[in-house]
């Protein structure tokens, strides 16, 4: 059962081939057996999962089951889940049991899904390899010496390993798409404002967005139907009609105009990744698409702008972790300053501290104009690049990451790590949606094709991805995990 897609499992449950309890039990056993190798979960909620599975089965018995009823999934440990530890991958929140559910958790729960637990992640979603977790690194299911990508590395690995058919991730600069690429799954970052951020622990509020990670575009569409929509508790969520994302997935791609940004095929791109991506584009051509070259002239400024804006917001968002009301508190503080200093020194990891320092600096008096204001100006230019491109083409395509998954410990230099997000970061700055779909295997390492669309173009992106997945089988490849 662990190889099936969400859609297949939904059909199986509906047909009575198996119950949600059977499915859940089987996956929990697989997690118990294999996750010690991968470390993709921080918390597995067996008991709660079985209860939810039973409730879903009961509902189905009464004929009241919905499409997602009884389907297991997992949440990145950044989504608040009532009564369950929500750590954000940090020692700081190791003892934090959220007293409420995030809006997306509430919605998916309401839809009848069964949560198997909380997945590992880079601390406070800061990282591109999942090596920055207080709970230890996650290993790539394709090869445990490789990273799964980050920051939603646990969710990506859990789906790739067949622990869950789908999981939720968050993406601030590539944190859904890059790990999806590294683990050979499908991951969608929706338009900023499409999915509520309420209850999602903030890293960089103007960039954070939750999204589905699953085997197929169709599965992502099923989840988006439940996740998307306006939330009165999130002022930045957009009040706009939510389409049925599962409708129109098969629409033929004749005449689809694909733009290839020249900047996404330049220096730094691994040749084997470029080959795979260009091959994917040829598949689209064979499906009737037209390909033209476009330019996103401000691409090179995306990483610098991001590393001003995101740390600035983070430095403020993470100020609440002060040892006063919740989370880690140092032992025997001598005074208030000591409480703050030691609590935060002990509770945060190096990368989080680095970004807090950067953000505090760039917002400081005398530096604000040179950094923060300038970065916001660049952000507008980057957004305009995309708007200009989408005036000419329907979607943009390119690699999700410059390389395939790398070895654990290979990127000790933070700047080398930051360059991992070179093709994903601008998308968050522009607020547009992007999806990564499996498009090849090089030395048993998955390659991700990234497809980008205009604001609120998720339905079309899913259609474009789905048709590709009907024509290819990369998304059906499964890693073999040794105990």
């Amino acid at each position: 059962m662990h190889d099936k897609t969400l859609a297949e499992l939904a059909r199986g449950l509906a047909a009575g081939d198996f119950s949600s309890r059977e499915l859940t039990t089987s996956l929990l056993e697989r997690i118990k057996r294999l996750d010690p190798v991968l470390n993709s979960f921080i918390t597995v909620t067996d008991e709660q999962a079985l209860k939810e599975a039973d409730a879903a089965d009961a509902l189905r018995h009464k004929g009241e089951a919905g499409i997602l009823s009884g389907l297991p999934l997992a949440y990145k440990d950044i989504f608040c889940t009532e009564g369950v530890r929500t750590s954000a991958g940090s020692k700081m929140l190791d003892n934090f049991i959220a007293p409420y559910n995030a809006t997306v958790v509430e919605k998916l729960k309401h839809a009848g899904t069964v949560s198997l637990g909380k997945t590992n992640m880079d601390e406070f979603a800061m990282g591109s390899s999942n090596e920055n977790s207080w709970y230890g690194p996650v290993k790539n299911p394709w090869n445990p010496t490789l990273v799964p990508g980050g920051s939603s590395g646990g969710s990506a690995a859990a789906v790739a390993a067949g622990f869950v058919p789908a999981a939720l991730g968050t993406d601030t600069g590539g944190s859904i798409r890059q790990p999806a690429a590294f683990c050979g799954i499908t991951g969608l970052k929706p338009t900023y404002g499409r999915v509520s951020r309420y209850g999602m622990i903030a890293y960089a509020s103007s960039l954070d967005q939750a999204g589905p990670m699953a085997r197929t575009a169709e599965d992502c569409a099923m989840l988006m139907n439940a996740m998307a929509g306006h939330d009165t508790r999130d002022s930045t969520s957009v009040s706009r009609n939510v389409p049925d994302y599962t409708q129109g997935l098969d629409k033929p791609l004749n005449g689809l105009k694909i733009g290839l940004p020249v900047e996404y095929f330049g220096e730094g791109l691994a040749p084997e990744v470029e080959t795979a991506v260009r091959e994917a584009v040829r598949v689209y051509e064979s499906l009737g698409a037209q390909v033209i070259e476009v330019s996103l002239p401000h691409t090179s400024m995306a990483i610098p702008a991001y590393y001003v804006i995101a740390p600035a917001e983070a430095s403020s968002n993470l100020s609440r972790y002060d040892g006063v009301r919740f989370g880690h508190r140092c032992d025997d503080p001598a005074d208030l300053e000591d409480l703050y200093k030691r609590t935060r020194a002990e509770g945060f990891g190096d990368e989080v501290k680095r970004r807090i320092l950067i953000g505090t600096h760039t917002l400081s008096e005398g530096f604000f104009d040179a950094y923060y204001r300038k970065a916001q100006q660049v952000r507008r230019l980057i957004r305009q690049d995309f708007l200009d491109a989408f005036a000419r083409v329907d979607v943009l395509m390119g690699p999700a990451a410059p390389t395939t998954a790398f070895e654990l410990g290979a990127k000790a230099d933070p700047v080398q790590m930051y360059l991992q997000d070179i093709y994903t970061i601008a998308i968050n700055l522009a607020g547009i949606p992007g999806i990564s779909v499996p498009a090849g295997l090089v030395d048993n390492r998955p390659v991700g094709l990234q497809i980008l669309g205009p604001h609120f173009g998720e339905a079309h992106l899913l259609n474009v991805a789905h048709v590709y997945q009907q024509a290819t089988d990369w998304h059906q490849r499964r890693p073999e995990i040794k105990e």
Partner: protein
Amino acid sequence: MQWEVVIGLEVHVQLSTCSKIFSGASTAFGAEPNTQACGIDLGLPGTLPVLNENAVAMAVRFGLAINAEIPEYSVFERKNYFYPDLPKGYQTSQMAHPVVGRGEVDITLGDGTVKTVRIHHAHMEEDAGKSLHEDYSGMTGIDLNRAGTPLLEIVSEPDMHSAEEASAYIRAIHAIVTYLGISDGNMAEGSMRCDVNVSLRPKGQEKLGTRAEIKNVNSFRFVERAIAFEIERQREILEDGGVVIQETRLYNPDLDETRSMRTKEEANDYRYFPCPDLLPLMLDEAYIEHQRSLLPELPSEKRQRFVESLGLSTYDADVLTGSRALAEYFEAVQQHCSDAKLAANWVQGDLLGRLNRDGLDITESPVSAEQLGGLLVRLVDDTINGKGAKQVFADLWERKVETADEIIDARGLKQVTDTGAIESLCDQVIADNPVQVTQYREASEDKRGKMIGFFVGQVMKASRGTANPPQVNAMLKEKLDALL
């Protein structure tokens, strides 16, 4: 050297919304600690703010009341600093784009002069919680009930030059916000707090001197005293050839002095930046006009009407418009008895006197406006005289009776206006006091005026206070002058 005092004020007004500025928790005062703080107020991970529309409406109405420009858009920013009663590690406030732009407030000084104080801007922000340093055996308690309470910070230009002006300004702000109903203005409960900026400069110099900021002064009286102290402190420093350092000071009412809290060098860098969780606040013309239509009559308008239509003195008008409740009380009394001056005298004299004596607010008055009006009606129609009215008022105050009319009859206070009855009393008094009559006859004209008071007193006494004094006076004068 002659020094000129320059004062600017930042007044924090707590807006009287039912719920907080960014959460649904109640803002009611006086609850058990931390019972009115929800996850958003606690800064729980993942929570997000949602702006309270009512708070915006109140801020806009304040802006309209002071003829300020209301910008089309304003922005919430984060003011970052660490403090245990600041749950998120930042205060959501406004900086570069406040909700209320430049405006003006008129203040009336003791001598009746009216002066205009310019308002630089007013911005919305959330209040912090409270640190409780007592009763926790060496630990500090944190109460977050107040955290997230909506505040409007009203920032004046440095247009005031004395403690009296500053005090008049605060009273004017107090009157405006209470008239608008956007704050209860209760300073004791912290609904209004002031930061006072004071500096001195040689008279005639244009450049401002170095200022000291006195934080969190929370009563009209303390504002005056803190400023008075601060002026003297700075004057002494300057006259000794020293320099005032820019710093934040705290006023201690027990010692009646200000004390340094932190200098400019120790000041926080608040690292303001636009709050990414809140969209810019956009206000269109229709919205602003709608808020304008909701404005009540404002103190300055009321004052002018009291003078022009009711014929009150500017002093009376000023006192009576001091708060919306007082003005409304006065107007109700005035409408009842149709005599504005009489109503003004009674409200300012007997009523406010007693209220002050008992430490009561006008809203807590034991005598309602209807009751006082009913009493004054009887004065106007000569049913009772002034002395009787005071007795009735005392009974009303002690809640012995419901209406003036009940007690007038019961106490036999009805004024005797029957000429025959008064005449016989006058004749009796003249007959009973031959010595005084002789003295009267022998006195000079101007002395007689005073001496007649004796006879009036006797007649009033004989009538047990029910005679009409002017009537008695006239009759006695006629009778005594006939004896000359």
